[in-house]
C-alpha cells in the first residue's frame, strides 16, 4: 500500500492554491473591462494571497521524509479509477513556491506594459498560475495531464495576443510542438494504466514493475512530451520563437516555470516509473544534454536579439539540468533540481530585466543598445547580478546548481562532465559579451536619457536578487527539502545496491 502523510494543515491547502487564482480570474471576469486598475489590483492581491498561502508549505513541510505531504484525495471519475489526488514531496514543493512568486512578479511587470485586452491578460495569467501549481501537485497521472495540457491555452493566448511582431507564428509553433509531444505521452499514460491494473495513481504505479521493452517504448513516449517542454536538443526550436515573441510576463513564465515541467516530468514520471529504461537510456540522455549545453551556448554567440539570446541560453542551461538528472546520483539530481529553480529565478529575472528596458526602447536588437550602464546604473547593477548568476559565479545560485550537476555528471560519465563543463566557458563568453554590448561601451544615442528603474520595477526584481544570493550562499535551505525525496527516487531508479550506501551516508549526515 502506498504511504503518504496526511495533510495536517486543517484545510485543503493545495486545492486552495490551485483554485485561488481561478477564483481571482472569475472575479476579474465579472469586472468591467474599463476598470483596469481594479483588474490589476485584484490580480496582484490574488497573486500575493496565493504566494502567502504557499509560504505555509515552505514552513510546514516535513523535510525528514520522502513521503507525499499535504495529501488530498477525492473521488473524481470512479469508473476509470481517476482520483483528484494532490500532494507534494521534496522534489515538487519548491516549484510551487517558484510558481506563486513568479506570478506576482509577472503581474507587476505587466502593470503598464499591457495596454490592450487587459482583462483577458490577467485572467490568462491567473489561470496559468493555477494550472502550473496543479501540475506540480498532481499525484494522479490524469490530473497531471489535464493541468499540463490546460496550461497550453493561456500560454497560447499570452504569446499570441500580447506578443511581439511574429507572435502568431511563435504561439502556434509553441502550441503544436508541445501538443504533439504531450499527446504521445497520453498514449503512454493509458498503456501504463492498463498494464498496472487500471490506476493513474502515480504512487501506486511506482510500486509496479514493468517489462523492459515496454519501459523503453514508454520512455520515448514520455520523452516526446517532456523533452519538448525542457526543451532538449533537437526539439528546442520552438523556444527561441516563443520566448522572443512572448510578452515579458509570458517569457518569464515560460522560462521560469513552464520549461521546468519537462525536467520535472522526467523526475516525477520517467525515472521512477521506468527505472530500467531510464538507466538504459542514460547515455543518450547525457549525450543530448551535452549537445544542448554546447549547442545552445555556441548559438548564443551569434544572436543579435536580446530575448533570443537568453532563450538559447535556456537551452544550454536546461541541458545542465537534464545532465544532472540523468547522472542518476545524488549530487546530479539535487543539483539538477536546484538548477531548475535557479534557472527559473535567473532567466526569469533576465527576461523581466529585458522587459523593463524593452518597455522603454521597444527594441530587442542588441546593437541598438550600448552604454546603458551610464544612464541606468541601478538597472545595470541588477542585471550584472543576473548575468553572473547565469554564468554560475560562486555566491550566486547558478554556481551551486552547476557545480553539483557537473560533479554528479562527472561521476556518472566523465566525458559528459568534461564536455558540459566547457559549457561554463561558453556561457561566460556569450553572457559577458551580451552585457558588454548592452551596458558598456559608448552610450548609444538611442538609449541616452532613459529613466532608471522605478520603484515598481525594483520591487519586481529585488526578490529574485535576494533569492539568487540566498541560494548561492546558503543553499541548504533549499537543498534540505530534497534529500529524502531524491534518495528515495534514486533507490527506485537504481533498484537497491548503491542507494543503500547512499542512505547510510544520508543518515549519518542527518544526525
Amino acid at each position, binding site marked *: 500500500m502506498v504511504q503518504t502523510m496526511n495533510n495536517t494543515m486543517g484545510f485543503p491547502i493545495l486545492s486552495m492554491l490551485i483554485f485561488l487564482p481561478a477564483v481571482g480570474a472569475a472575479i476579474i471576469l465579472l469586472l468591467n473591462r474599463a476598470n483596469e486598475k481594479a483588474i490589476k489590483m485584484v490580480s496582484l492581491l490574488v497573486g500575493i494571497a496565493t504566494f502567502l498561502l504557499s509560504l505555509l508549505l515552505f514552513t510546514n513541510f516535513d523535510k525528514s521524509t520522502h513521503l507525499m505531504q499535504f495529501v488530498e484525495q477525492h473521488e473524481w471519475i470512479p469508473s476509470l479509477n481517476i482520483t483528484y489526488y494532490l500532494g507534494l514531496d521534496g522534489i515538487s514543493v519548491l516549484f510551487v513556491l517558484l510558481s506563486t512568486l513568479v506570478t506576482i512578479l509577472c503581474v507587476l511587470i505587466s502593470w503598464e506594459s499591457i495596454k490592450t*485586452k487587459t482583462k*483577458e491578460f490577467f485572467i490568462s495569467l491567473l489561470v496559468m498560475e493555477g494550472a502550473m501549481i496543479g501540475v506540480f501537485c498532481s499525484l494522479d497521472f490524469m490530473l497531471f495531464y489535464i493541468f499540463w*495540457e490546460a496550461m497550453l491555452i493561456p500560454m497560447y493566448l499570452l504569446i499570441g495576443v500580447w506578443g511581439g511582431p511574429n507572435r*502568431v507564428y511563435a504561439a*502556434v509553433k509553441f502550441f*503544436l510542438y508541445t501538443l504533439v509531444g504531450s499527446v504521445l505521452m497520453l498514449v503512454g499514460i*493509458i498503456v501504463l494504466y492498463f498494464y498496472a491494473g487500471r490506476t493513474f495513481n502515480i504512487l501506486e504505479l511506482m510500486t509496479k514493475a514493468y517489462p523492459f521493452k515496454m519501459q523503453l517504448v514508454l520512455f520515448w513516449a514520455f520523452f516526446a512530451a517532456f523533452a519538448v517542454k525542457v526543451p532538449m536538443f533537437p526539439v528546442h526550436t520552438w523556444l527561441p520563437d516563443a520566448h522572443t515573441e512572448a510578452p515579458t510576463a509570458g517569457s518569464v513564465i515560460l522560462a521560469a516555470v513552464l520549461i521546468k515541467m519537462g525536467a520535472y516530468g522526467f523526475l516525477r514520471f520517467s525515472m521512477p516509473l521506468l527505472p530500467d529504461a531510464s538507466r538504459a537510456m542514460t547515455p543518450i540522455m547525457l549525450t543530448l544534454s551535452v549537445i544542448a549545453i554546447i549547442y545552445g551556448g555556441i548559438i548564443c554567440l551569434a544572436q543579435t536579439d536580446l530575448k533570443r539570446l537568453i532563450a538559447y541560453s535556456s537551452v544550454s542551461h536546461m541541458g545542465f539540468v537534464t545532465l544532472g538528472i540523468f547522472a542518476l546520483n545524488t549530487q546530479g539530481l539535487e543539483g539538477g533540481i536546484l538548477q531548475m529553480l535557479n534557472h527559473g529565478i535567473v532567466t526569469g529575472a533576465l527576461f523581466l530585466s529585458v522587459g523593463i528596458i524593452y518597455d522603454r526602447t521597444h527594441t530587442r536588437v542588441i546593437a541598438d543598445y550600448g552604454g546603458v550602464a551610464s544612464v541606468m546604473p541601478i538597472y545595470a547593477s541588477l542585471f550584472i547580478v543576473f548575468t553572473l548568476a547565469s554564468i554560475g559565479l560562486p555566491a550566486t545560485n547558478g554556481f551551486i546548481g552547476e557545480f553539483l550537476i557537473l560533479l554528479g555528471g562527472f561521476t556518472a560519465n566523465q566525458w559528459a562532465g568534461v564536455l558540459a563543463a566547457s559549457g561554463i566557458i561558453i556561457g561566460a563568453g556569450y553572457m559577458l559579451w551580451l552585457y558588454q554590448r548592452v551596458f558598456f561601451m559608448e552610450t548609444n544615442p538611442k538609449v541616452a536619457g532613459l529613466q532608471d528603474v522605478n520603484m515598481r520595477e525594483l520591487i519586481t526584481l529585488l526578490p529574485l536578487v535576494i533569492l539568487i544570493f540566498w541560494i548561492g550562499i546558503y543553499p541548504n535551505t533549499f537543498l534540505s527539502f530534497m534529500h529524502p525525496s531524491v534518495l528515495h527516487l534514486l533507490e527506485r531508479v537504481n533498484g537497491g545496491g548503491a542507494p543503500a550506501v547512499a542512505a547510510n551516508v544520508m543518515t549519518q549526515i542527518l544526525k
Partner: protein
Amino acid sequence: MPIAMPNLIPVMPELVMTGVAIILLMAELVIKRKETLGFLSLISVGLISYLLLGSAGTTFGGMFVSDGYSTFFKLIFMANLVLTVLISPKYLQTMRINFGEYYALTLFATLGMMLMASAADIIVLYLGLELMALSTYVLAGFIRYDMKSNEAAIKYLLLGAFASAILLYGTSLIYGLTGTTNLRDIAVYITHNGLAKNPLLMVSMIFFAVAFSFKIAAVPFHMWAPDAYEGAPTPITAFMSVGPKAAGFAVLGRVFLVAFGSVKTDWSVILIPIAVLTMAIGNILALSQTNIKRMLAYSSIAHAGYMLLGIIAGTPAGISSVLNYMFIYAFMNIGAFAIVIMLRTEGFAGEDISDYEGLGKTHPTAAALMLVFMFSLTGIPPMAGFMGKFYLFMSAINAGYTWIVIVAVLFSAISAYFYLRIVMLMYMKEPKEVIQLNTSPGIGLALAVTVSAVILIGILPAKVLALAQQAVTSF
C-alpha cells in the same frame, strides 16, 4: 382474427414525438408567431425525456428495443433537438424562411433517429433511417431561393439514396442468407450455421459498413458532407452534424456488434482503414478551408473518425466511449455553430473564416465562447472534448489498438492547427469591419447550456461517463 395490443410503453416517447410533430403541422396553420412552435417542441422534449427514462422494454415482436443504449442516444437526440430549436428562430427570420414545417420536420428527423437507435430489425432500421434522411433532405434545402441550399439538398438526397440502395442490397443479401431481418436472429443464425467466413456475408457486411459510413460521413463515403453542411441552413448544419451522425453510430454499433458480432475480426479490418482515413482526410482537408461551416464539416468528419475507434474496439468500454463522445460532441459542435449563426445578419453571411478577425475585440464574450468550443473540439483539457477523446483512446488501447490511437492523437494534434486558427483570428488580429451580432434569447440560452456543459463535463465527467457505461450494460 384477434390482434394482440402491442406493449406501447417502450415506444411511448416516439408516439408522443409523432403526436407533437403532427400537432405542430396543424398548429402551423393557425399560429402566426412560428417561434411558439419551437417553444412547443421544447416542452414536448421535456415530456419525451421524462418518458424515455421509463421506457425500457422490447415491443412489436422484438422489432423495437428500448434499452440503455438507445435511451442514451435518444438523450443525445433530445439535446440536439433542443439546441437546434433554440438556435433556429432568429436565423430563420433573418433568412426569411420562418415556416412552421421547419420544426415539424426537425421533430420527424429526430423521430427517425430515435427509431434507428431502437431498431432491432433491419426493416425498422431502414425506415427510421429514411424518415430521418428525408426530413433532413428537406431541411437542408429549406432556403429554397438559395442555390447553395438547393445544391446541398440534391447532393445529399441523391448520394443518400445511392447509399440507401447499397444498404438495401446488403439487407437483401443478409436476408437471403439468414432468412430473417431481426438483428439478434441474424447473429444467432450466423454462429449456429457457421456462416462466419461466408464471402457473401462479407459482401453484405461491407455494404452495411458502407451505408453506415455514409451516414456518419466516414471517408471515402464522406464526400457529400462538406457540400451539404456548407449549403444547408446553419442550424440544420448543426443539427445534421450531430443527429444523423449519432444515429449512424447507433445503428453501426448495434448492427455490427449484435448482428455481425461474430465476425468482428473481419469488420474491424474494414473499419480500421476507414477510421484512419477519416481522421486523416477530415483533419487535413479542414486545414485549407476558408468557409467556417465547411471547416466544421471536415472537423465533424474527423470526429467521426475518432469515434470509429470506439466501435473498432468493440468492447463495452469502447461503445460507451462512443456514446460519451457523441454526447459531448453534440454540445461543443452546436455551440460552435451557434456562434456561426450569430455572425449571420441580413446581407452578411459571416461564414468566411476571415470574418472572425478581431472578434475578441469587438465581441469579447462571443469570442471567449468560441474559444472554449474550439479548444474543446481540439481536445484540450479542461474542456469536455478532451475527456471524450481520452476515454475513446483509452478503450481503443485497452482493446489492443494502440497504433491506431497513436495515429489518432497525431491527427488530433494536427487538428489543433485549424481550430487554433479561429482563436488566432479572433484574438490576434485586428477587426476589419464592425460585425453586428445577431443575438436572440434562444441563442443565448443555447450558448449558456453548451458552454456550461462543455466546461462542466470537462471538469466533472464522472456522471456522464457513468451513464454511458450503464447504457451499454443492457446492450
